């Protein structure tokens, strides 16, 4: 069972199954795949596979890291003639200069050397697998997360949905559209206070796109915004009206809407679908319709919409992501390789291990020729 759970065959089978399920899910978006029971089962099995396989291989990795120089005069080692003690030092110096970590130990007359390089890439796959487990666990925790949204007019208060945070209220001080030097929209910023159980807990915090505000494990994201317009009308339809941005309004025989633009509110009059007149207005500005009907544009009411989220898995997933990134860089540091030597009298015994055969042969040739060079020098 353990053997099956830790096998690469199972890993490849699971990877193939998850990939195929994902392909299917994007082709038939109406079929619920990712939240289905069987897909989660696959992920769970995948997680188990990773866990067992990592646990099984970690001892070997630690053993390699802690490995000490040993006698390698066995059958697998290549025996080479050398002359004198001089070349032992020259050779270890040479290996050190090549970036190897060199350990030495003498064992009677025998001098054993162990040189290791690329330890980070030895750790890399295991760190990556571990990171994947962390991400999957975080993803599972995220399924207990909740998210919702809260809309609030500038200058007013609004309750954060209780499913996300009970007793939390926001009060919006300001909402601004920020422009860059070229006049394009750079960001939307909401400035707000947070009350928790009627006590002001955050004073003048800001949230904008790409920079959420976090408080007590609850994140506030700038999600949307909008405007209402306050108008006052005299005459037949006399009254004060608060109309949403771009919503069609009828006054006597005229049809119009008000749109908030970067420069300010714009009133558009329509005949059918066509715009027949446009006019920018300021606060307090009056427009006369007929003899006793006057429309006064009183003020703009901006509102902001914040997404609110409480997710106990996010930080776990982010930790996993960080580990994945570190592991990725480790892969780029070059293959792990190991040179083991035993010097005995005027003979040296040499083994090189590296998963890449070409690289192994290259290192063997290099060390061999260095030993030969030592022979002529010494």
């Amino acid at each position, binding site marked *: 069972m353990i053997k099956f759970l830790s096998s*690469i*065959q199972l*890993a*490849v089978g699971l*990877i*193939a199954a*998850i*990939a195929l399920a*994902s*392909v299917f*899910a*994007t*082709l038939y*978006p*109406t079929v619920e795949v*990712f939240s289905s029971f069987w897909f989660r089962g696959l992920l769970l099995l995948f997680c188990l596979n990773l866990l067992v396989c990592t646990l099984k291989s970690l001892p070997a990795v630690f053993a390699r890291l802690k490995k000490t120089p040993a006698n390698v005069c066995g059958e697998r080692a290549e025996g080479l003639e050398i002359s004198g003690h001089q070349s032992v030092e020259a050779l270890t110096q040479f290996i050190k200069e090549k970036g190897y970590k060199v350990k030495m130990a003498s064992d009677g007359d025998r001098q054993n050397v162990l040189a290791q390089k690329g330890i980070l890439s030895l750790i890399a796959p295991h760190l*990556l697998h571990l990171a994947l487990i962390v991400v999957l666990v975080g*993803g599972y925790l995220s399924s207990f997360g909740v*998210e919702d949204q809260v809309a609030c007019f500038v200058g007013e208060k609004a309750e954060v949905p209780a499913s996300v945070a009970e007793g939390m209220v926001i009060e919006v001080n300001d909402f601004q559209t920020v422009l*860059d030097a*070229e006049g*394009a*929209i*750079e*960001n*939307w910023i909401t400035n707000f206070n947070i009350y928790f159980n009627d006590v002001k807990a955050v004073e003048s915090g800001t949230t*904008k*796109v*790409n*920079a*959420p505000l976090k408080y007590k494990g609850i*994140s506030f*994201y700038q*999600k949307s915004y909008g405007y209402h317009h306050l108008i006052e009308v005299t005459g037949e339809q006399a009254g004060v009206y608060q109309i949403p941005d771009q919503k069609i309004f009828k006054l006597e025989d005229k049809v119009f809407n008000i749109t908030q633009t970067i420069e300010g509110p714009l009133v558009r009059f329509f005949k059918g679908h066509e715009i027949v007149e446009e006019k920018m207005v300021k606060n307090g500005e009056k427009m006369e319709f007929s003899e006793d009907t006057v429309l006064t544009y009183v003020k703009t009411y901006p509102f902001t919409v914040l*997404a609110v*989220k409480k997710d106990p898995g*996010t930080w776990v*997933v*982010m930790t996993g*992501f960080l580990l*994945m*990134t570190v*592991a*990725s*860089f480790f*892969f*780029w540091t070059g293959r792990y390789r190991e040179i083991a030597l035993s010097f005995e009298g005027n003979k040296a015994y040499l083994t090189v291990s590296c998963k890449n055969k*070409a690289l192994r042969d290259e290192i063997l040739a290099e060390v061999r020729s260095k030993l030969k060079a030592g022979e002529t020098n010494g």
Partner: protein
Amino acid sequence: MDNLQTPLLVATLLAYVLAFMFYFITFIYSKESFLNYAKILTLVAFLFNSSLLIIRAVLINGLPLRNLFEFGLFFVWAITLVFLIIQYKFNLPVAALFVLPINILLLLFLVNLDVTIRPAMPALRSKWLIVHVLSAVLAYGAFAISFALSIMYLLKERLMKSNPAGRLAGILPKPEILDELSYKVIFVGMPALTIMLVTGAVWAEYSWGRYWSWDPKETWALITWFIYSAYLHIRLRGWKGRKAAILSILGFLAVIFTFLGVSYLLPGIHSYA
């Protein structure tokens, strides 16, 4: 500077086409003397490609990585970069016959796109985007090369059986070399793909408040990542050569589908996801 864009784009395309023709003459008609011209033309194309990216960077005052056109331009640039490394480090200019057509096809697609500069949306103004897209470009460049090498592998294997004395069989390197190099390139590309996935998710978390939403683009990026991780694992079990080459080809098809297919073939889905 704005109106330099289209001429430079056309010049880049022409230079890649000419370079391809010179490599073709060098190898298919055994005109060794053409090889140097082919190499110079590739460098010229790379230079045009780079200048276009620099102009674009100056115009938008940032890295040009914000839309399909800019990403595509960087993609072609990265493919050429990885090819140049392969050509010089492993002395494999013949790979040009299989790599440059990818560049030419991509550029033929890019010349149809709108080059107008538009301001970026607030969500795109993030430093995560830069790392995200740069790592994508690096990974995709590597995978394109591995794809070309895998095609060469399959071709060579076939020709060795059917027509071992033919010219094409003669100019293609030994299958073991192609197989090994293809693996090396994927081994370098895979961590970049991992960084791409991670930074994309982190960016989504900051921007939308959700690190993963199973939207078709991210799902396809994940599928690509799964294919290449399967590739690396089957090699650990000693599966080399043909099977590995097929998986590498499949991986690159997934890359292309993520890059183009999702935008054009699954358009309705974005509103669902």
